[in-house]
């Protein structure tokens, strides 16, 4: 009935609509989505950057403030990409309006992609806000814009998908905070946001290499400062594999209807 070309066009419109809806949600509840990261990142910069950072001196050949700025931007990108999808998707599931998408002629992978990119949009909006805040405290040069944007995109996409999967598996509101509390926050704090892993004792340095967030933060920081704690090729390999793996897992769960279809 619908020609393949017509189907592709219909899918594109459907996909765009999911993005418009996610963007609308971010803007509508800006007090929950955009404001808090601006406030917390300001606090981080004041406390760690200005007050403590002055006594720390140089890290990896840079001012402490300059060193942590990319880390803090990336931390907020991670948290907000994750947070956007977990609450948007869980809200849709809990409020039953996910059914609006489930009855529509959209393939599951497109629904996953729509939510994930919604999370990326939030991640980038917040990342921009935090970057602007950081400019009040330090100077950030842009050495490799392509690295900055690609590392932020891949990281944001991976954690947006993490939020999606968590929301699918969660049965109640308590369960949407498991992943951030027990995995996301520890890995972020131990992922070289506030320190260079070269400052660590050998065993901790080795252990840190098992932490994917280390690679993401390092690649992103390299784009600004030109130095990294890890091999960039390895960092990109890890980010791409994580993105593909998470996306596939999310689509498989959707196809099985886990937590959304009886």
């Amino acid at each position, binding site marked *: *009935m*619908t020609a393949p070309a017509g189907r592709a066009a219909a899918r594109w419109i459907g996909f765009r609509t999911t993005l418009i809806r996610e963007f609308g949600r971010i803007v509508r509840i800006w007090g929950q989505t955009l404001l808090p990261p601006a406030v917390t990142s300001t606090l981080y910069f004041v406390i760690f950057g200005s007050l403590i950072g002055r006594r720390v001196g140089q890290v990896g050949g840079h001012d402490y403030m300059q060193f942590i700025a990319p880390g803090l931007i990336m931390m907020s990108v991670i948290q907000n990409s994750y947070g956007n999808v977990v609450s948007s998707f869980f809200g849709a599931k809990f409020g039953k309006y996910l059914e*609006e998408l*489930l009855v529509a*002629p959209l393939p599951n992978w497109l629904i996953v992609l729509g939510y994930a990119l919604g999370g990326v949009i939030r991640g980038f909006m917040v990342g921009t806000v935090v970057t602007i805040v950081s400019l009040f405290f330090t100077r950030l040069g842009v050495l490799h814009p392509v690295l900055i944007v690609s590392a932020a995109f891949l990281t944001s996409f991976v954690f947006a998908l993490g939020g999606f999967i968590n929301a699918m598996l969660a049965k109640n509101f308590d369960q949407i905070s498991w992943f951030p509390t027990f995995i996301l926050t520890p890995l972020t704090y131990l992922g070289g946001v506030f320190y260079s892993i070269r400052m660590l004792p050998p065993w901790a340095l080795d252990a840190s290499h098992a932490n994917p967030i280390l690679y993401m933060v390092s690649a992103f920081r390299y784009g600004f400062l030109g130095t990294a704690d890890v091999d960039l090729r390895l960092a990109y390999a890890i980010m791409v594999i994580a993105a593909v793996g998470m996306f596939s897992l999310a689509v498989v769960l959707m196809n099985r209807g886990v937590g959304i*279809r*009886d």
Partner: protein
Amino acid sequence: MRALVLRQLTKTYKNGIKALKGIDLEVERGDFFALLGPNGAGKTTAIGIVTSLVTKTSGVVEVFGHDIDRELEIAKSCIGVVPQEANFNQFESVQTIVVNQAGFYGIPRHVAKQRAEVYLKQLQLWDRRRSIARSLSGGMKRRLMIARALMHQPELLILDEPTAGVDIEVRRSMWEFLRLINGEGTTIILTTHYLEEAENLCRNVAIIDGGRIIERDSMANVLRKLQAETFVLNLREARTAVPRLEGFRAVLADDHTLEVEVSRGQSLNRVFAQLSEQGIEIDSMRNKVNRLEELFVRLVDSRGRAGAAEALT
């Protein structure tokens, strides 16, 4: 071409409840079809399977010839559904909800905005288009879901209890609207607990109970059955053959029990007169509740007084 075909459809939920035990159903294109049944009969489950909200356990579903196992996207694009319970984002505006839904079905935004105006006006929601959905009354929410279901102009509209909890005036205007779009060619399937509603709107009906279809007929025939009452007569003396009763259908349930079907308007006197002529004495008599009536009585019980009054008229 049939709008909907269900073949041997079954559903067993994870908790072990067998909600559907092998349903066969065909609904013709252009039909106005009622799916009746008491609480828990399996109506919403069946609709859920057709609209991809529930995974079937086994069986076949075809929408305008498109099998949902093979051509799901096309099948979905043919259907508009109004669910039993509100399922929109309560914090979005009326207009946003209907325009976005059209988008999910691939309708370009400028077209969606024009249609939103048409349908929201027809359903008397245009003045409330900027209201947050949460602020609507129950009847308005139902109309919002009808408008939303029509945005991609589906060939098959499925409504799960569209008028539950809606006042009589709004209900009548909804009926008028549904008749209008059915007249324009949209096939409509609805579930309802109001016999009056099905009687007013629908040409064909299926009655589902305990996950099985127990009746599938034209509305007229079903009403005829409903209007025929069966009386159970206890005979003083045992009989082996059914007495002659002109104008009535009679069967012997056992040698002392005669069951006679009497349509509305027929006189019971004629039964007694013919029996007296043959020297048959009757000790007592009672009403036999037929399967269908039994069903409606149960329907009525589950819906309280308002429904009861309607079902009995």
